[in-house]
């Protein structure tokens, strides 16, 4: 008998072990529940690091593949097919890291039904890892839909005042897009006779006008998740109502499922449609960048401000991906990670404040830097990272994206005009406007409210929650090559394949 469990299955389903342990706890064993969840997520993170150690960046193909027939009835060819490559390895690490940090952030914030909270959280981690690792369309869809349930619960049970509304809206909105994707998946599975993604990509041969419809069907699901303008209406509700840890995962990882979906499925499976629709996607992305930035600036609720900033930041990611050159796509992937780090950190920061003051109204603050100097300094670093200060992580991603999209705007590029980049670059100015405004409202000026005078600076656990993200902010900013190296081979292969397919496919 062979008891060996492949690493990808292990990392995906390890959280379930924690869930089983949690089931044996009594409802009042809150501390135990937290520790069980934390340790489980840390081990999961450790497993993902082991996967990284085993990962060969020079190999552009899927690695550590496991492929077992699963549902093979009536000519359906569905398998349990997992694999990791340069497109997904960083997202795996981001997921496991952010899950651990989120659990750490709930230590005092979640007091109600801790055990159930942790169970849903670990289920969520499992679902997200599955989404990034599944290489079978059907399996992917199962994981994709699965993530909805725990997130729905996290918002609906542990959320704010309008949590039910937000949870239902989140669920239905995302579901609506997914239905179209399901139809497209079934079409592919039936007419191409396989759900195996690499096989489908290699097969090619989907006629361009069909690619177009399939692109839109997949795109609908992903665009809602990203969210691309104008499909972002669920986001502020979900973010504002979700508990801090939920917001961190929502912004940090769940949104990346959308951008990752475009990268993994739309670009790979429908290359001709991707090339043809690139200017349209880029146009929506640029509108999202500017619109998100402007709307952020006008918010009073700090969490809403950060939520809308995601619309702007994810616009950059989409612009980079659809530049369809190595700078744009690698920049886009790196920016997914960067956004997870800096926006994740921003939500953690907002959560720390909310825990102390139970309000997110920016008018209720001011002068906090004086009261909470460490908190202020760390927030400043995160804010600067988010606005793309050179030397910090955000800059590397945004610069590569814009450089790539500028190249794609030159004659012969897929975007056809450098105006996309020029307008998107305005978003960098606007990011400084809303982020510095936020920092000023919270931290600068005199302390005007009595209750702010007595706030305690952040404690060691909170510093520990932020520290890994701060380290990554500097690391990626100063020396991003280790991260870029992980993805370059896979990205190059993807772009070459698209090039070939697009040249072959256009008559």
């Amino acid at each position, binding site marked *: 008998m062979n008891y060996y469990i492949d690493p990808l299955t292990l990392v995906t389903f390890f959280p379930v072990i924690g869930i089983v342990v949690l089931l044996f706890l009594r409802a009042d064993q809150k501390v135990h529940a937290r520790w069980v969840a934390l340790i489980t997520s840390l081990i999961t993170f450790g497993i993902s690091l082991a996967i990284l150690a085993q990962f060969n960046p020079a190999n552009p193909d899927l690695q550590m593949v496991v492929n077992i027939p699963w549902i093979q009835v009536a000519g359906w060819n569905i398998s349990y097919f997992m694999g990791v490559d340069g497109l997904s390895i960083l997202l795996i690490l981001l997921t496991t890291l952010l899950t651990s940090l989120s659990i750490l952030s709930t230590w005092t914030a979640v007091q109600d039904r801790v055990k159930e909270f942790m169970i849903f959280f670990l289920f969520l981690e499992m679902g997200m890892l599955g989404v990034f690792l599944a290489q079978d369309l059907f399996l992917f869809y199962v994981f994709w839909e699965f993530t909805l349930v725990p997130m729905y619960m996290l918002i609906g049970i542990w959320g704010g005042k309008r949590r039910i509304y937000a949870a239902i809206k989140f669920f239905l909105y995302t579901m609506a897009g997914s239905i179209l994707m399901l139809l497209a998946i079934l079409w592919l599975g039936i007419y191409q006779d396989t759900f195996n993604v690499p096989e489908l990509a290699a097969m090619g041969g989907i006629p361009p006008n069909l690619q177009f419809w399939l692109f839109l069907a997949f795109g609908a699901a992903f665009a809602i998740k990203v969210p691309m303008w104008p499909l972002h*209406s669920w986001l502020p509700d979900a973010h504002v109502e979700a508990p801090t840890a939920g917001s961190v995962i929502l912004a940090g990882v769940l949104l990346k499922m959308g951008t990752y979906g475009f990268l993994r499925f739309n670009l790979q499976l429908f290359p001709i449609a991707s090339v043809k629709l690139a200017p349209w996607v880029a146009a929506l992305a640029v509108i999202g960048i500017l619109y998100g930035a402007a709307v952020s600036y006008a918010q009073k609720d700090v969490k809403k401000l950060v939520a809308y900033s995601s619309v702007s930041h994810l616009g950059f990611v989409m612009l980079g991906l659809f530049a369809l050159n190595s700078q744009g796509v690698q920049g886009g992937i790196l920016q997914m990670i960067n956004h997870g780090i800096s926006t994740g950190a921003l939500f953690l920061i907002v959560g720390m404040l909310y825990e102390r003051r139970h309000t997110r109204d920016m008018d209720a603050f001011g002068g906090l830097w004086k009261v909470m100097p460490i908190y202020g300094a760390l927030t400043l670093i995160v804010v600067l990272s988010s606005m793309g*200060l050179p030397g910090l992580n955000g800059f590397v991603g945004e610069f590569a994206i814009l450089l790539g999209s500028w190249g794609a705007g030159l004659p012969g590029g897929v975007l056809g005009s450098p105006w996309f980049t020029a307008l998107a*670059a305005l978003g960098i100015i606007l990011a400084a406007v809303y982020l510095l405004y936020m920092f*000023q409202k919270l931290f600068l000026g*005199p302390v005007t409210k009595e209750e702010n005078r007595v706030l305690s600076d952040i404690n060691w656990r909170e510093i520990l929650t932020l520290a890994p993200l701060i380290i990554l902010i500097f690391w990626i900013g100063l020396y991003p090559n280790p991260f*870029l190296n992980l993805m370059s081979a896979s990205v190059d292969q993807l772009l070459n394949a698209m090039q070939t397919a697009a040249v072959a496919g256009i008559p």
Partner: protein
Amino acid sequence: MWLSEAVSSGPQFFYLVPLVVLFPVIGLLVNTAFGGRMSEKAIGWLASAAAGLSFVVAVLLGISLLSYPEGAVVPIVDWITIGELNINWGFQVDTLSVTMMLVVAGVGTLIHIYSIGYMHDDVRFQGDPGRYQRFFVFMNLFIAMMMILVSADNYLMLFVGWEGVGLCSYLLIGFWYDKGENGIGNAVAGKKAFIANRIGDFGFILAAFIMFWVFGTFEFNAVFELAPEVASLFPAAIVAITLLMLVGVTGKSAQIPLFVWLPDAMAGPTPVSALIHAATMVTAGVYLITRSAALYNLVPQVQNIVALVGAATALFAATIAVGQFDIKKVLAYSTISQLGFMVAAVGMGAYVAGMFHLVTHAFFKALLFLSAGSVILGLEHAHHHMEHNSQLKLPMDENDLHFDPQDMRNMGGLRNRMKISFWVYLIGAIALTGIPPLAGFWSKDEILTDAANFNPLAYWMMLAAAFLTAFYMGRQILMVWFGKPRSLPAEHANESPPIITVPLIILAALAATGGALNLPMWHTFTHWLEDSLGHLHAAEFSLQIAGLSSFLVLAAIFLAWLLYGRKYQAMQELPPDKRPDDPLRPILGPVFNALNHKWWVDELYWTIIINPYVSLAHFLADVVDWRFWHDWFHDTVIVGGYNKLTQVLSIQIDLGVIDAVANKLGDSVKRAAAKWRVIETGYVRNYALSFFIGVVLILGYLILR
């Protein structure tokens, strides 16, 4: 022995260049980690030592360059590698970068030392001694970022320093972030500086995109080598790159139209104004154009624009300086104006003249700001002393309680109270106005000579600016130092301690003698920079131009004396309500008001850019995104529509059709049942009969089939 080694073994010493960044980084890290447990003195001297060590390294590099003038590129490690994009962390050691390093670290060290004394008092006047540590951390961060800017070997690393110094500027302008107008004024000023710079950086970054897709690299040497070839293939690309870089320059070096942030930046502590907003950071734009000489030389039409932007800024800012009352605001507009001179110079291809003026300006403007700081400190001391010493029982009126120690109208006669500060201030002012033989004369004269040859329009604008410079400096000197004290604190001000005056004396010596760097007969500085920039023409000394400019300067000073030496003093005898605050006000009338209000440029920007953006943002957020898209479309149309649909389905379709059918069905069953009920009699015999009939029928069927 290090010096002799540096002379003999130059190339090895070039590898020390990362230390110019590393020392201040170490300084800031140590002060961040342990500053809380260190004394003020230790913090200040540690930071000063970090800056000083950077200076030592820069000196060693400079000495090595004497024997190995070709310099070196010192790559450290790869930074961003994506496809054909390949950017390094790498340092460029040549005469141009080392000149900047010497200025930054040299002036920087002096200002660090000065700050040890200045900030000791400042943090107490402002009521938060805890911020002393933070100040020096930010200052060291600034030195590190500035060093990255000037020592980079490629445009992108330069950009790291470029935005990094902008960050330090933001942090230090808003250093007293809980002070200023409504308690938030300083923070707002910092934000304004950051955003104005970001607008400039928008231009810079677009220039970088074009550069990459045309040149394929960001490295200086590679770009400059390819430039002529590219210029013949894609001339428009070079035009676009240089113009977009100019946008960056207008942000960082406070030129028209982005200069508006610099006057507000005076909200920062005075050493910050001296170091960042006068001597070093704001000259980064001049450095950038000089560094990119190989590109600008290819596009004369852009050079012309650069020169005119510079000259126009020089004149425009000089007019505003005439109408200011805040001692630091005058110097701020003077800085903008002088930066205009430099930008105009490098725009005309007079790189040496521009860089020369950059160096001398660093000396005398740092000196002026620091001595102004000494004055401010003196007045603040006196004011505090009076406020907190009730035994003095001095008559304090309303004006004295809201005392502004930076308002020149509150000064006067200080030359007797603060002798050292007075003399060094005078030296700085003379150097600035360009009276021979002090530093400013030589460098400004070189710019004017070049302008006379290449760009007459710029020449006349700058000549007018030079006239105004002498006038507003004369005005300031007379208002601050001469006449009678116009406030109680001015009467009781005392000279600052040596930790403040010694750096002033050193800077004064530099301001007096700095012109020797590039005297017209030797052109030392020209030959020094030629090793970086290729052959440079050396401006011939023109007695005619020097004579004309000197005459104008003296005339302006005489005019200032008439107005502020005589008339202003005479005005003091008038009763306060009839006394104009400035003798120019009655003469110029509304024009003076315009000068005083900075030609309402800020108001203009508020009206045409900022307010519309704020309104647009609120409109998008509240009306479009929330009321229309979120509430109306999603909640009313989709959710409401769905509810309507379900209602229609449940009432009209379900009740009206399906239910009706079902009910009708039920009714007919009932009706049938009512008819059939007659057979259900309840008598056993009837049931037996029907049972019997049934049996007969079944049996009959079975038999007969």
